[in-house]
């Protein structure tokens, strides 16, 4: 065990992925000598050489196009997009190509060896172009897996699993936690399963669901609620696609109440998908409407970020509202 922050855990996972399989290649803007603008790829070029860890030209559609080809060829491609806000130029390569490669070829070819890492979310005074949480844009795309870790331990295990999963994975890293989240992380190689949510705390009155950086305010709100005698079950979804319907359904069948939170805008966010599914599966058990606590239907702001963000107070209010419905 070692104390690592989230960035170190990711760096460590990449190191192990490259050490354990010499077909693994890491690349992206500034990931070479510099080790990435957040330093997630520090020392990898030094250790594994320029052929396996390198800077690319500044072109996201090229990075993912290149990665698709490299993965189809048989290498394990781990591509970094510097900020999730800048993943959109690669949207076509991800949504029309990565996601459909296996299906359209009848499995003659696939890019299952592809993993796209990208920092997402607010909390760094980044304004509308260094704060977005675009997971829902990708969640509507069969063929992709989408993973978001909440802390260093999870980040390492989920990233190693993502890199080795035989499907293309978009791996969103909560950049607000890069240095802020520190925890015990085993030094050896381990994987955490994709597609499985994790119940952080059992409870009986209400289910609280989120992923990534949003787990922190969720847990804080739960603490506040517990003080008022509300027993909260807390779930980290971990994988957005395919999501663990069973775990969430079972929890809501028990509690009868659900609050979902994400930073992205409300309309078209992934909480909508979850609410739609759960209202169907738990219809007769729901004691109050499923609540969504999310960003506003606007671009991400700067000066008023605090007001915009779904913080613990807003979640706490939603919990109380649900309980007293």
């Amino acid at each position, binding site marked *: 065990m070692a104390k690592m922050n989230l960035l170190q855990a990711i760096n460590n996972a990449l190191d192990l992925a490259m050490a354990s399989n010499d077909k693994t290649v890491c690349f992206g803007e500034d990931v070479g000598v510099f080790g990435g603008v957040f330093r997630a790829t520090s020392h990898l070029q030094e250790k594994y050489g320029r052929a396996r860890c390198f800077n690319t030209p500044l072109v996201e559609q*090229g990075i993912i196009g290149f990665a*698709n080809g490299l993965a189809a*060829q048989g290498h394990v491609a781990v591509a970094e997009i510097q900020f999730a806000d800048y993943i959109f130029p690669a949207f076509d390569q991800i949504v029309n190509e990565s996601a459909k490669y296996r299906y359209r070829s009848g499995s003659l070819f*696939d890019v299952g060896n592809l993993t796209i890492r990208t920092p997402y979310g607010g909390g760094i005074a980044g304004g509308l172009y260094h704060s977005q949480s675009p997971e829902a844009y990708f969640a509507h795309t069969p063929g992709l897996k989408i993973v978001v870790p909440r802390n260093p331990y999870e980040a390492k295990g989920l990233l190693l699993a993502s890199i080795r999963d035989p499907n293309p994975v978009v791996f969103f890293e909560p950049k607000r936690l890069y240095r802020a989240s520190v925890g015990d992380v085993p030094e050896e190689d381990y994987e955490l399963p994709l597609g499985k949510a994790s119940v952080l705390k059992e409870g009986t009155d209400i289910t609280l669901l989120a992923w990534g950086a949003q787990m922190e305010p969720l847990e804080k709100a739960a603490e506040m609620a517990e003080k008022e005698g509300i027993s909260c079950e807390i779930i980290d979804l971990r994988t957005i696609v395919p999501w663990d319907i069973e775990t969430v359904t079972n929890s809501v069948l028990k509690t009868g109440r659900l609050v979902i939170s994400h930073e992205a805008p409300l309309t078209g966010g992934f909480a909508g998908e979850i609410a739609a599914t759960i209202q169907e599966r738990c219809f007769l058990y729901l004691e109050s409407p499923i609540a969504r606590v999310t960003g506003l239907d606007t671009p991400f702001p700067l000066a008023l970020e605090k007001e915009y963000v779904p913080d613990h107070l807003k979640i706490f209010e939603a919990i109380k509202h649900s309980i007293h419905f």
Partner: protein
Amino acid sequence: MPTTKNANSSSIHTPTFIRGDEFHFPIYKVLKQDGTTYRGAVLPKLDQEKALRIYRTMVFTRVLDERMLAAQRQGRLSFYMQSTGEEATVIGSAAALDDADMIMAQYREQGALAYRGFTTDQFMNQLFSNELDYGKGRQMPIHYGSRDLHYMTISSPLATQIPQATGYAYGQKLDGGGHCTITYFGEGAASEGDFHAALNMASVHKVPVIFLCRNNGYAISTPSSEQFAADGIAPRALGYRMHAIRVDGNDILAVYQATLEARKIAVEQNEPVLVEAMSYRLAAHSSSDDPSGYRSKKEEEAWREKDPILRMKLWLQKKKWWSEEEEKNLQESLRREVLETMKKAEKRPPPPLDSLVTDVYDEVPPQLAEQLSKLKAHIRKYPDAYPKSAGGLKHG
């Protein structure tokens, strides 16, 4: 120093704008339309066997295209795309490769696949989306692919394969097996952002890839004069410091020789090469298109006179490698084969219902399995409404 490359740029003290008007990319030609070669031309070493393999493939492609367009017109097939006029470009270049080099094509390169030995059956199974289609009936006709023949399954979104070819070739370089990738694309697709990304990354990362642009004058109805203002695609290579050559795309010998040498550069020096093949899309864009709305018969006629297949035939005949008798037999046997194979293929059933949900992921996730089982129950309830799959369900 980041800018040392410019160190030997000369200084000037008068502001001079350069547009390159005076610069014209020369075009490499070997074979004249009458089957003779240009004086002093560098001729490829092409033995009779290989030459005939090429020629037979060209004729096969032409016959296939004619028959399948006719089948489409009869309503037997939903869609088709011909490569008429561009056979030398595609087959000549494919013939210059190692058969294990990777091909990442656009869609008008059936000739390259045929050259590698894709069977008429295999073509037909794809065209008719039947249970034997490698693509499991998921893509429109002409989206072929073959793992055995190192031919990447065609994808409709244009130009996406170009940066993928750069990445694929980078992987080949890491593997060190001496192979390269060729990617084909039209002069229209070369306008996409992916083109720029691909060529720039290939030249920076020194990757063994051949970018073969089929400049056939049109992107659907858009003439190349509305696609770019420059003298074709080849001059773009100068912007990437990439080897480039322009070749007469209707000249089988020039295409073959240029690609052979391009491959040498790619594989031996790990450097990308751009090949621009000048040709003309003699047929409509696809079976859905009618070119009479945007170009003249006269223009088409002028190009029909430059037919690449006829040109090669005359060359073969001059070399006494081919006779009219052999031509007649080949044509007849190919027509027969295509028609018979087509009849077989169209009778085969479509892929099974499960193929709706397989290959989305390596395994079918629970949600999707649930969706399939609901669908099956629904089809069992309304079998008449889903004739393609209901039968399979009863017995399955």
